[in-house]
C-alpha cells in the first residue's frame, strides 16, 4: 500500500468574473513536509489558499474547478470553520488576535476550558466559568511545542510583533486535529533574529508530523526551511522543485521570468539635471501601505518609478506627500520645505496626483466628465470660474469647462458620448484617462501616478502609458509613477526605486536586469549593486 499524501490538490482552477486567476494547479504534500509557495503578487497564491481554506468568497464567486483530497478523502470545505475541523490551520497576514487579551486567552480564544456552573441549565453553555489555570497550562504547552519563549500572561498589545506571530501560530497548532498549517507571509513583520527563531520552530513542528505550507517573499527563508518549493506565475505552476540545489537567483527568475521585449527608448541616456523633489526620512501612516523611513531625490524632467510588492508602502509615498494620509519627515520641493498633511498646499505647489483609488478618491462618479476634469483646476487655481465684484462672488463657467474637457477628450481619446456624460458610465480605461486629464488640467510640474493601468485592458494600458510619456516629453512634466507591474515601470521610467517593508530596498536604472529587480523586491538584494540615488 503506497502512502497516501496528506494533501492532494488536482487540476485546481478559478475564475473571478471571467478573469482567470488559477489554472490547472496540482500540488501534493506529505505529512511533516514543508512546502514553500512563492510567486509575485497576483500569481494566485492567496486564491489557492482561499480555496483550500473554504473561504466564503470562493463560493460566492462561483466555486472552483478541480478536486482536493485530505488524507485520501475528497473534501470541499464550506467555511473556514469546516477547514479548521478538517485539520487545516491558517495564520493570516494580518494578526487575528485580540489586543487586550493575554497570550493564553488568545491561544484559547473560543476554545476556552470551562467549569460547570448550575446556571448553565438555565441560560446555556456560555455561562460556564473559565478554568484559567488549565487554559494557561495548555497555552504554555502549545508555546513549548514551538520551542519559543512567550509569556502566557502578557497582553498582546504590549508584546513585540514577533511574539504576536508566535501566539498566532501556537493557536493554530493547539487544535488537536491540526495536520496542516498554512502560513501566509509570517515573517514579513519579523526581525531577522525573530524570523530565524520562527523557522526553527516550524522545523520542529514539521518533525512532529505536521505539514506546512509556507508563503513568503523572503527567498532565503524558503531555502532554509522548506523541503520543496512551488512557483506560481499568472495562475499556473511554473516550477515545482526540491529546495536542495536550488538558488535564489533561479527562483527569482522563475517568478518574474517573463521575457521582456526590448522597449525602444527615445533618448538612450537622460541626464539628471537637478533634483526637484527631495524626500528625507518620510513616514506615512496609511493603512496597509505603511511607509517607515524613505529618502530619495527626483530629478527635474525624469520619470521616476517606484515599484515593489503590494502592501510594502509604495502607494503610501505618493499619498503621504500629497497629504492624503498622516505623514512626517521632510519633503523639499524646489528648494523649499513642503508642508505635509495639507492636500491643498501640495496641489498649489504645482503637484498633482492620479490616485490608485479611482472610484473613491479619483473621480466624482455621479458627475459628468467635464466636471471631473475641471474640478481640481477650479478648486485650486480658480479656473473655469466667472467672478463678479472683484471676486467676491464666483460661479462656474460652464462654457469654459466644456471646452477644457473637450480638449482632453480629444487629446487622450476618451471614448464617450459627450463631455456631459457621467463618469460612472465610462469603462475602466476611460475613467483612468479622465483621472489623468483631471491631473493634466492643473498643469502640474510634478505628477504622481499610482497604479495607472490597474484593472484596464491591454489596449488602454498602452494608451495611458503613452499619454504619460507624451506629457513628460513635451510638457516637461516630472512624473513619479508607482506601479506593481515591474514590466510597465521598466518600459517608461528612467530610474526605478523598489520599496520593501516600508523602506527603500534599492534603486536601479530601468535597464537593469529583471533578476536584480526581483531580488530587491524580495528583500534579498542587499548589496553593492544598489544604484546611486539612495541615501
Amino acid at each position, binding site marked *: 500500500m503506497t502512502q497516501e499524501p496528506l494533501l492532494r490538490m488536482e487540476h485546481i482552477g478559478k475564475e473571478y468574473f471571467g478573469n482567470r486567476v488559477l489554472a490547472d494547479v496540482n500540488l501534493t504534500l506529505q505529512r511533516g513536509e514543508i512546502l514553500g509557495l512563492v510567486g509575485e503578487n497576483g500569481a494566485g497564491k492567496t486564491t489557492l489558499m482561499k480555496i483550500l481554506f473554504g473561504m466564503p468568497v470562493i463560493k460566492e464567486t462561483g466555486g472552483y474547478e478541480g478536486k482536493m483530497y485530505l488524507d485520501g478523502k475528497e473534501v470541499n470545505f464550506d467555511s473556514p470553520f469546516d477547514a479548521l475541523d478538517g485539520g487545516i490551520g491558517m495564520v493570516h497576514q494580518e494578526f487575528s488576535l485580540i489586543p487586550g487579551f493575554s497570550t493564553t486567552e488568545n491561544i484559547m480564544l473560543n476554545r476556552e476550558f470551562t467549569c460547570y456552573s448550575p446556571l448553565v441549565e438555565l441560560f446555556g453553555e456560555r455561562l*460556564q466559568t473559565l478554568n484559567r489555570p488549565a487554559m494557561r497550562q495548555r497555552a504554555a504547552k502549545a508555546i513549548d511545542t514551538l520551542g519559543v519563549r512567550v509569556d502566557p500572561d502578557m497582553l498582546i498589545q504590549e508584546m513585540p510583533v514577533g511574539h504576536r506571530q508566535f501566539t498566532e501560530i501556537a493557536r493554530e497548532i493547539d487544535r488537536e486535529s491540526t495536520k496542516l498549517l498554512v502560513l501566509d507571509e509570517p515573517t514579513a513583520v519579523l526581525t531577522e533574529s525573530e524570523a530565524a527563531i520562527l523557522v526553527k520552530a516550524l522545523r520542529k513542528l514539521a518533525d512532529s508530523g505536521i505539514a506546512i505550507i509556507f508563503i513568503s517573499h523572503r527567498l532565503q527563508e524558503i531555502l532554509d526551511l522548506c523541503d520543496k518549493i512551488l512557483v506560481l506565475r499568472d495562475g499556473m505552476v511554473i516550477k515545482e522543485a526540491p529546495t536542495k540545489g536550488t538558488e535564489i537567483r533561479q527562483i527569482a527568475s522563475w517568478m518574474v521570468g517573463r521575457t521582456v521585449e526590448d522597449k525602444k527608448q527615445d533618448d538612450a541616456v537622460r541626464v539628471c539635471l537637478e533634483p526637484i523633489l527631495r524626500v528625507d526620512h518620510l513616514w506615512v501612516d496609511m493603512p496597509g501601505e505603511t511607509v517607515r523611513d524613505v529618502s530619495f531625490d527626483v530629478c527635474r524632467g525624469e520619470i521616476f518609478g517606484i515599484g515593489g510588492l503590494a502592501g510594502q508602502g509604495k502607494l503610501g509615498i505618493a499619498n503621504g506627500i500629497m497629504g492624503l494620509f498622516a505623514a512626517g519627515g*521632510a519633503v523639499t520641493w524646489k528648494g523649499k520645505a513642503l508642508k505635509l498633511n495639507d492636500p491643498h498646499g501640495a496641489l498649489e505647489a504645482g503637484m498633482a496626483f492620479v490616485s490608485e483609488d479611482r472610484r473613491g478618491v479619483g473621480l466624482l462618479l455621479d458627475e459628468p466628465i467635464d466636471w471631473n476634469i475641471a474640478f481640481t483646476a477650479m478648486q485650486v487655481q480658480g479656473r473655469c470660474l466667472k467672478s463678479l465684484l472683484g471676486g467676491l462672488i464666483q460661479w462656474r463657467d460652464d462654457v469654459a469647462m466644456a471646452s477644457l474637457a473637450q480638449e482632453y477628450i480629444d487629446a487622450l481619446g476618451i471614448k464617450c458620448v459627450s463631455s456631459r456624460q457621467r463618469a460612472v458610465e465610462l469603462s475602466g480605461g476611460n475613467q483612468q484617462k479622465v483621472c489623468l486629464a483631471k491631473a493634466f488640467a492643473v498643469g502640474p510640474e510634478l505628477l504622481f501616478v499610482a497604479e495607472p493601468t490597474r484593472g484596464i485592458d491591454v489596449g488602454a494600458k498602452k494608451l495611458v502609458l503613452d499619454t504619460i510619456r507624451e506629457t513628460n516629453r513635451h510638457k516637461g512634466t516630472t512624473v513619479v509613477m508607482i506601479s506593481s507591474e515591474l514590466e510597465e515601470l521598466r518600459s517608461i521610467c528612467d530610474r526605478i526605486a523598489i520599496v520593501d517593508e516600508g523602506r527603500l530596498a534599492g534603486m536601479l536604472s530601468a535597464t537593469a536586469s529583471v533578476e536584480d529587480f526581483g531580488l530587491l523586491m524580495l528583500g534579498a538584494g542587499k548589496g553593492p549593486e544598489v544604484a546611486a540615488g539612495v541615501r
Partner: protein
Amino acid sequence: MKNKSFKDILISNAVPIIFLVLSAAAIPLSGFTTSYLIQEMVTRMGRNCFLVLSLLIPIAAGMGLNFGMVLGAMGGQIAIILVTDWNIVGMQGLLLAAMISTPISLALGWLTGEILNRAKGREMVTSFMLGFFMNGVYQFIVLYGFGMVIPVENHAMLLSRGFGIRNAINLQGVRQVLDKFLMVDIGPIHVPMAAFIVIALFCLFILWFNRTKLGQDMRAVGQDMAVAKSAGIAVDRTRIIAIIISTVLAGYGQIIFLQNIGTMNTYNAHEQAGIFAIASLLIGGATVSRATITNVFVGVMLFHLMFVVSPMAGKTLMGQAQLGEYFRVFVSYGIIALALVLHALRRRMDKERERQSLRGGDAPAPANGH
C-alpha cells in the same frame, strides 16, 4: 511597563480630578453642613449606582455608552405603574415590579440589540435616537394604553377622562421599602444598607460574569469584532445578549431609583436616567470603550456632589438664585462635553505615539507638525 509617569496618571484621570477640584472649591461656597452632604451622597449612591452599573456590560462588549438603558428604565416604570395600580405593597410589590419588568426589558433589549447590530460603530448616537423613538411609544402606551387596553383599577392614577396615567404617581406602596428594609444609622447618617447590599451583589455579579465564557466572548467582541468572528464567536448574538442584560438590569435600577424617590414623574422620569448615568460614568473617569466598577462609584459620587453643591455655590458666587442654577447646568454639562473631548484627545495622543515607531532613526524633527 507599569512605570507610568505622574503626567500620564494626571492625563488619564483628568476628568475626575477636574471635578474634584471644582467640588472642593464649591463645597465651602455652598454653605451646606457636612452631615447634610454626606447624607445626600449616601442616599444618592444607593439610589443611582445600580443604574450606572448596568452600563458596564455593553461597554465591555464594545457597544459604547448606551442609551438603550433608557428602554430598560421604561420597562421598570411600566412595571411600577402596574404594581401601584394593583396595590401590591412593600417588599412584595418591589419584587413583583422587578419580575414584571424583566420580560418587558428583555423584549426591549432584544429590539435594541437587533437595531444596534445594524448600526455597528455608531451605537451611542443610534441608541440615543432609539431612546427618543421609544419615548414616543412609551408615552402612547401610558397615555392611551392604560385604561383603554390595560385595565386600571385604581382610578386615582387615571386622568379623569378615564384613560391615561396622570403625570405624577404616588408610589406610596413601594416608597423606600428597600431603603428602609435595613436602615442602619451611623452617627447622624442613615445608611440604606439593603440598597447597598443589592449594589454589592450586582458588583459581584459583574466580577463573576467577567469570568464566564460569555463574559470572555463579550470582551473579545468588544475589542475586535472581526477577530472574534473568525474565531467562531457568534458576534451579533453576543452583542444582543450584552444589551439585553444591560436593559434588564437598567429596569431593576430604575425601580430602585423610583422607590427611593417615592413619586414617579410618569412621562419624564426615564429621560434623565440615561443621560445622568452616562454623565456619572464619564466623570468617574470611564471612556467610551473602558469602564470599571471603581469608575461607577467615583463618578456617581462626584457627579452628585457637584449637583448638590453647585446651585448654592453659584448663588453665593453670583449673588442670585437663578444664576446658581445656570452655574450648575454649565458646570455639570460642560464637564460631560469636556470628558468626551479629553477622551478624543487621548485617543489621538495614543495614535501619535504609535506613529513614532514609523519614524526613521535620524529624522529631522518635523517642523510642520499637525
